């Protein structure tokens, strides 16, 4: 099962893509973040929330497929 991840705002600049597919899917958000922090160390310093299938989740949430989004706060106006 592959997992699709969307990066919003400045997170997409760190990952150099707005969307990508992870081949080996981690089973919790915590595992996913570990994996992403290794791939993109710059993500570690950023604040963001994680959503699975358009629902905000906490870090211990299980990933059972669907679309994952990483959402940082915007301040601009």
């Amino acid at each position, binding site marked *: 099962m592959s997992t699709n991840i*969307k990066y*919003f*705002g*400045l997170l997409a600049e760190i990952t150099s893509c*707005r969307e990508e597919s992870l081949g080996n899917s981690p089973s919790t958000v915590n595992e996913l973040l570990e994996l992403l922090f290794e791939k993109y160390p710059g993500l570690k*310093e*950023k*604040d963001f*929330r994680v*959503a699975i299938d*358009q*629902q*905000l989740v906490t870090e211990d949430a299980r990933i059972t497929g669907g679309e994952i*989004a990483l*959402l*940082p*706060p*915007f*301040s*601009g*106006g």
Partner: protein
Amino acid sequence: MNRYSRHIILSEIGPEGQKKLSAASVMVVGAGGLGCPALQYLVAAGVGTIGILDHDLVEESNLQRQILFGTSSLGTNKAVSAKKRLADLNPSITINAYPIQLQAQNALDILSGYDIILDGTDNFETRYLINDAALLLDKPVVFGAIYKFEGQVTVFNYKGGPSYRCLFATPPAGSSVANCSEVGVLGVLPGIIGCMQANEVIKMILGMEEVLSGKLLCYDARSAGTSFISIARNEDRIKQVFDERDSFVQNHSGSNYSCEPMEISVEDALKMEDVQFIDIREPGELPFIQLPECIQIPLGSLEQSISEINSEKNIVTFCRSGIRSKKAVSLLIENNITNCYSLKGGALALEPAIKSLIK
């Protein structure tokens, strides 16, 4: 009611809906990229009372997206300048300009006078301040924020829905988020997002269903696509805001607001249009200042003399060095004269500037 005929003819609005708009009051905090387009459509729609709060002056780099201004308003206060332009668009409504900074000390007072708050600010501090004050006042906030090509829109504190703290508990650490003016923004993006915010305001006033509460709209101008993220209410975080109610003014979370009334430099004050200087020193104080648009009202008699002050003008108060004039500004604002400044450096700074102008 010819002005609103295109609304009244809609069965979803009708004369009743237009009356609701006319009876409503909306405070727009920030007359920048988001506030400008939102204000245009709220004013055009006939929202009866509109507040505009912004302490910034119009700069040339604003004109790439802040479409209420122009070269003729460079250097003037945004709230006052926006009010002037909007009064022509719809003279039948009331527009209040607040050329001041929203602070923990004045937020509850100022926002309590309005039904709905539109957040068009450009920094996290004021966004959390607006959210917390609105929670304490039980008023909905239409949130909008932008980053380069992307925007976020949602409604907080609406009928028991989530608040900003349910989405992001606390402001990010300083280094984590770049400042808007450092990163740039596609000029038309705040146009789209600001109009979407005005739309949510109007939907709430009309009592329409499907208000964007509990859902964050994420818009990307590159794809023109929209996605929605559901936000659940977090009772703990909301309770915390209420628990800290008493200390709201004293120690607003991470507060680094200056408590100062709005100051203006001598240079900017002398360039300002429609200005009224008030010399609040005691008679006989030096240096002697002669300016055509200047009246003398000593600080001690300012409150009794409020009626003599033309609140349509931009008021610049000055004393000898710029200390007492801050008190004068606070006093004027308490008396609902909001477009007023304290002159930085006072008469001591003003005197040489006038002399160099005469030369």
